[in-house]
């Protein structure tokens, strides 16, 4: 609790005790009413003194219809019509409500900042033989930094010495620690768990992942959802209207209805004033959105504003980039088809042929072979551009390459059925078989698409620059509705524009990409989602939603969070406005007391806030 809140609490407690004493004096001891009145006044001043003071100050400043003023008039009015106990009680409850509000807001603010507590406080910079503690901003690119176990990695860099495991949970929501060793790239904000690391800074603090994420999180609420704006606008009209109604209620019936008691109608009007306070209505809405954004961050999904959270809930068309989004963007040997030899022999020959190549396909073949190569067995390596590689292995001619190379060599091959790049292998004049190399689909991609469908995403579309056969094979495996293949970056933008016209009036389109080369497409969609935000600067800048991990399954999760948050927001709006209107009507007919009115204000706020806090829990 803050100092301000504590002060309020003590005032409430003290006021409550005096109020109880007043009640006893009036109803228990039946002493002279004037004695009770004085005690009531004391209680009132203890509890509501600051409200009255603020009301006076704000009226001097030209602020009418402000909460303090409304509560002040309502309670002072209650004294004048003789309902002293109610006047004090209303003020007491009002203060309890205010206290609860600031407590709840404070707690959510804190829980979010704790969630995003990734700011590194210092860096251990190596200077000659000594280590100096400096602030992360003072570190230059190329400096060597020491990160001990338990410390936070202050800047993005490369590990120069040591190995360790890193806790990336705060950044990615991933609870499995990540292993790093010499040469690994390392991102700021992670916590070093086991070993001492020496890292070389590759980016300044301001350009480092941690600074970018913090900036993103801090500015999260700057873009507001329509619902959020609706409620502020609603409050703008609600309060004056109810106050005017209160004035009319106080004056007109007493003049028109013969025998009407002034005090009775004024009492009803005062109830109106209590209900007219706007804050309770307004507060739960930003609190809910804030909770939703915070809950999403907790799962590694950073959403740049509540407007995007709101849009996500109406997702109708999902457009996906293929490579790096639905697939890993890494090549792997997916099929080994030996002909007259063992798989091992086939892989060995292919791996040696590709022994010196840095091409991703070559790397994937060596990985599939998995054993150390003794490159002295290899000689006369010749790369036949666009075809493959010819070499001499253990003194005999070997070759690995595509169909064209095989034609050149006059070897007849059997075409495998799988989709991907095919490498044929020949050794000592005889055909050994083929390898199929393809990009690997992410483990959770199919499940993610299925979930999106069940969440009401009507159409899923994949855009890819890849060959048609490859694109279609991936789409079929994943259950994507439509594929557009062999697209140049400009074609992707065009397709996106066309798709944007095909959605329904309320529906939204989201595009998911890995942030490489697709910034214009990200910008063209209603919601641009960038995947694997760690490290890709362009993605963090251009996207509306950044998914910190590489998992497409975070998208349905984000949609679910969005729906839930919006559901909570709607419940709160309907509940708060509903109760207020109901109590207004009852009060107008003299059926609701000021007690009901104060419930309509404070009670509703407390319930709505409790409901809003649910949004944070995912």
């Amino acid at each position, binding site marked *: 609790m803050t100092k301000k809140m504590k002060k309020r609490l003590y005032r409430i407690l003290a006021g409550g005790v005096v109020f109880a004493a007043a009640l006893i004096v009036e109803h228990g001891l039946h002493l002279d009413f004037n004695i009770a009145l004085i005690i009531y006044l004391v209680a009132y001043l203890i509890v509501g003194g600051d409200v009255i003071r603020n009301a006076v100050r704000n009226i001097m400043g030209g602020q009418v219809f*402000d*909460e303090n003023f409304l509560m002040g008039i309502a309670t002072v009015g209650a004294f004048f019509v003789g309902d002293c106990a109610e006047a004090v009680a209303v003020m007491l409850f009002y203060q309890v409500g205010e206290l609860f509000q600031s407590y709840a807001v404070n707690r959510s603010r804190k829980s979010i900042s704790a969630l995003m507590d990734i700011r590194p406080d210092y860096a251990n910079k190596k200077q000659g033989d000594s280590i100096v503690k400096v602030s992360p901003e003072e570190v230059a690119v190329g400096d060597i930094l020491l990160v001990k176990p338990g410390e936070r990695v202050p800047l993005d860099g490369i590990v120069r010495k040591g190995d360790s495991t890193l806790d990336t949970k705060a950044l990615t929501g991933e609870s499995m620690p990540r292993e790093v060793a010499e040469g690994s790239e390392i991102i700021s904000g992670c916590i070093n768990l086991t070993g001492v690391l020496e890292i070389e800074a590759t980016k300044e603090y301001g350009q480092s992942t941690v600074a970018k994420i913090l900036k993103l999180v801090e500015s999260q*609420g700057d873009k507001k959802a329509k619902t959020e704006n609706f409620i502020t606008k609603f409050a703008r009209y609600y309060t004056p209207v109810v106050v005017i109604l209160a004035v009319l209620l106080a004056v007109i019936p007493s003049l028109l209805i013969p025998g009407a008691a002034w005090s009775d109608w004024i009492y009803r009007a005062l109830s109106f004033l209590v209900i007219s306070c706007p804050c309770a*209505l307004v507060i739960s809405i*930003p*609190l809910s959105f804030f909770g939703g954004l915070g809950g999403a961050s907790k799962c590694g999904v950073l959403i740049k504003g509540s407007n995007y959270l709101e849009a996500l809930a109406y997702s109708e068309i999902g457009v996906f980039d293929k490579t790096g989004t639905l697939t890993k963007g890494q090549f792997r040997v997916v099929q080994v088809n030996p002909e007259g030899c063992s798989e091992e022999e086939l892989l060995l020959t292919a791996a040696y042929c590709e022994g010196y190549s840095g091409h991703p396909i070559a790397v994937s073949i060596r990985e599939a072979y998995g054993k150390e190569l003794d490159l002295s067995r290899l000689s006369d390596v010749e790369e036949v551009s666009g075809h493959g590689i010819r070499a001499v292995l253990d003194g005999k001619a070997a070759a690995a390459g595509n169909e064209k190379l095989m034609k050149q060599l006059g070897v007849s091959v059997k075409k495998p059925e799988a989709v991907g790049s095919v490498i044929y292998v020949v050794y000592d004049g005889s055909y050994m078989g083929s390898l199929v190399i393809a990009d690997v689909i992410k483990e959770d991609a199919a499940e993610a698409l299925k979930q999106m469908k069940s969440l009401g995403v009507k159409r899923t579309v994949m855009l890819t620059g890849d060959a048609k056969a490859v694109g279609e094979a991936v789409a079929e495996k994943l259950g994507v509705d439509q594929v557009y293949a062999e697209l140049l970056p400009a074609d992707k933008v065009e397709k996106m524009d066309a798709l944007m016209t095909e959605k329904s009036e309320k529906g939204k389109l989201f595009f998911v990409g890995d942030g490489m080369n697709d910034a214009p497409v990200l910008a063209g969609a209603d919601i641009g989602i960038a995947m694997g935000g760690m490290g890709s600067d362009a993605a963090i800048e251009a996207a509306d939603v950044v998914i910190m991990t590489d998992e497409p399954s975070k998208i349905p999760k984000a949609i679910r969070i969005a729906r839930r948050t919006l559901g909570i927001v709607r419940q709160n709006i309907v509940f708060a406005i509903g109760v207020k209107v109901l109590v207004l009507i009852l009060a107008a007919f003299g059926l609701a007391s000021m007690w009901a009115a104060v419930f309509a204000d404070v009670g509703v706020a407390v319930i709505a806030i409790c409901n809003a806090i649910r949004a944070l829990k995912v």
Partner: protein
Amino acid sequence: MTKTFILEDLDCAHCAGVIEEKIQKLDEVKSAQVNFMSRRLVIDAEESAFDKIVKDAKKIIKKVEPDVEMVAAKL
């Protein structure tokens, strides 16, 4: 250009809306946003106009919520 400020001790969501509306209405301000939960006030305006805007904004805030203090956000 945009500048960000923190509204310290901002406790009232409705007042945040009122402050936002009034700052938006200042002549030199292109756009202004108050985010109640993060207590941030983001103002977009010409750089040369900021001195005056900050002065006016502070005046507005003093009027609406005297307890709130407007300070420049740390980068």
